[in-house]
């Protein structure tokens, strides 16, 4: 049986929840499919305070923002969230299939909002398959969701916001941080995060990287070495570091399988951290009725993902004729908020990426339907 749905949101993270909330606010009925056992996405692991302005709930901690959003959504009868439901496919006739337990579900939504988020990048070095080499997301899940102390002593690789924040959270959990190594000559994340962990005695080593893992059967240490300005190893700079976990925080890439499958026009944009769907100001893809919001459109902060969710939610509801004037006005407002968030130097890269994404040409178009078996 194919179930009808007015607006279907794939992914119950910050972008998806905000999209659902915005759309329902203007009268649309929304179904959110979330593969995890609880909605909230990465918000549930974020114990630090968010930046932004009050409108984006700045100063609140990520997990609190998630709880608040879910509380607000919980009282809205127009929103339904199905957890432990993994979307499997998006077909040419608009049917979305999903797996829930051992049940194969089919939906035919009038509008689709893809908020699938991002996946962590990995790094190639000898020994990276040993137990004890983790992605930062896994470390955060163990620590902040499962309440498990993931290590005694960690070598953090990467000084973007995730590397800095997870180091801070590890320190709060009583884990020692041997060092943060950063291949680039500059710290990638916000400097206030960097200063906060620096004054806790955690060294941040710019121009350094992990060369190999030491250990027999599990991580017992690492060899780090210095890099020159062309990211080439400088001989005889190797240093041994004792640690039982190497945590990789070397970036994220948009999780775009559904966009590809839906036949959306895709472009590789370095500034947005990978292949992204081409979207207009309303975050509608080149497939009419399919929207994308949050990290799937380019890696950015959760505060931007939430605002993007609102843009897509209002736009989708508006296109279905739900309080079109109010929806349009709020959508415009949210677009303004996004502009404000991206106005500074940190948003410069994103703006450059969006410009590239919107420029003519360079699109990759793969129609996957033809290859289905």
């Amino acid at each position: 049986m194919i179930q009808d749905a007015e607006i279907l949101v794939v992914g119950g993270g910050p972008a998806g929840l905000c999209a659902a909330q915005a759309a329902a606010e203007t009268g649309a009925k929304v179904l959110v499919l979330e593969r995890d056992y609880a909605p909230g996405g990465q918000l549930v692991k974020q114990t630090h305070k968010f930046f932004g302005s009050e409108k984006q709930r700045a100063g609140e901690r990520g997990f609190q923002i998630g709880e608040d959003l879910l509380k607000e959504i919980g009282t809205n009868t127009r929103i339904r969230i199905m957890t432990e439901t993994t979307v499997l496919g998006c077909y040419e006739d608009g049917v979305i299939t999903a797996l829930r337990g051992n049940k194969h579900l089919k939906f035919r939504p009038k509008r689709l909002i893809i908020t699938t988020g991002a996946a962590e990048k990995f790094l190639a070095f000898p020994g990276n398959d040993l137990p004890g080499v983790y992605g930062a997301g896994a470390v955060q899940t163990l620590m902040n969701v499962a309440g498990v102390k993931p290590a005694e002593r960690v070598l953090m690789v990467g000084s973007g916001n995730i590397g800095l924040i997870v180091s801070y959270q590890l320190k709060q959990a009583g884990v020692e941080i041997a060092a943060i190594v950063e291949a680039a000559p500059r710290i990638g994340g916000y400097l206030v995060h960097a200063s906060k962990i620096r004054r806790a005695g955690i060294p941040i080593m710019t121009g350094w990287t992990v060369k190999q893992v030491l250990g027999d059967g599990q991580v017992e240490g690492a060899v780090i070495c210095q890099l020159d300005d062309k990211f080439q190893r400088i001989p005889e700079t190797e240093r041994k570091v004792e640690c039982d976990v190497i945590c990789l925080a070397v970036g994220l890439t948009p999780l775009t399988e559904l966009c590809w499958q839906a036949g959306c026009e895709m472009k590789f944009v370095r500034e947005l951290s990978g292949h992204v769907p081409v979207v207009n100001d309303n975050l509608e893809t080149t497939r009419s009725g399919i929207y994308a919001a949050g990290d799937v459109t380019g890696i950015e902060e959760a505060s931007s993902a939430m605002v993007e969710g609102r843009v897509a939610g209002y736009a989708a509801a508006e296109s279905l004729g739900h309080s079109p004037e109010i929806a349009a006005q709020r959508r415009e407002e949210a677009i303004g908020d996004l502009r404000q968030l991206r106005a500074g130097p940190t948003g410069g890269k994103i703006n450059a990426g969006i410009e590239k994404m919107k420029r003519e040409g360079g699109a990759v178009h793969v129609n996957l339907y033809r290859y289905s078996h």
Partner: protein
Amino acid sequence: MLISTGIPTKEDLGRVMPPVQRLAKGPVAMAECFQKIPCNPCAASCPVNAIHIGEDINECPTIDFDLCTGCGTCLTKCPGLAIFIIDESRGDTTALVRLPFEYLPLPEAGQYAMCLDRAGKELGWFKVARVIRGNSRNLTHTICVEVPRELSMEVRNIREGSYRNG
């Protein structure tokens, strides 16, 4: 360099430090916020409108030190934990440094804590004058340490768990 180490330089600090005369008058905030990022809770939370960021929330905050009362509201709101309250008005050789703190256990007032500088280097055991617990929503605690006045611009952290009585 701040961008490669996370430690602000003397020049960085010189741009945000309250003037000596103001420091001698009573508690005042110092925002060690040097990078343009989209953030404005400090300005939004100031009860006397002493912190200015303006329309573009990417601007760094500027503090009107004459308006600032050193109340510490901004210190608990700043998501970057980058605001400190300095009080050099005690009339002796000590100064009070109030700092945001998000580690457990907390020290108790009267205990001595190992104080650290911006690089995490040990500066010595100094007395904890006051501990203000964050409420259930804003979980940032603030610790007030009594330090030699010449260290008021150096002490920016205490080591969690390194506390002793006397």
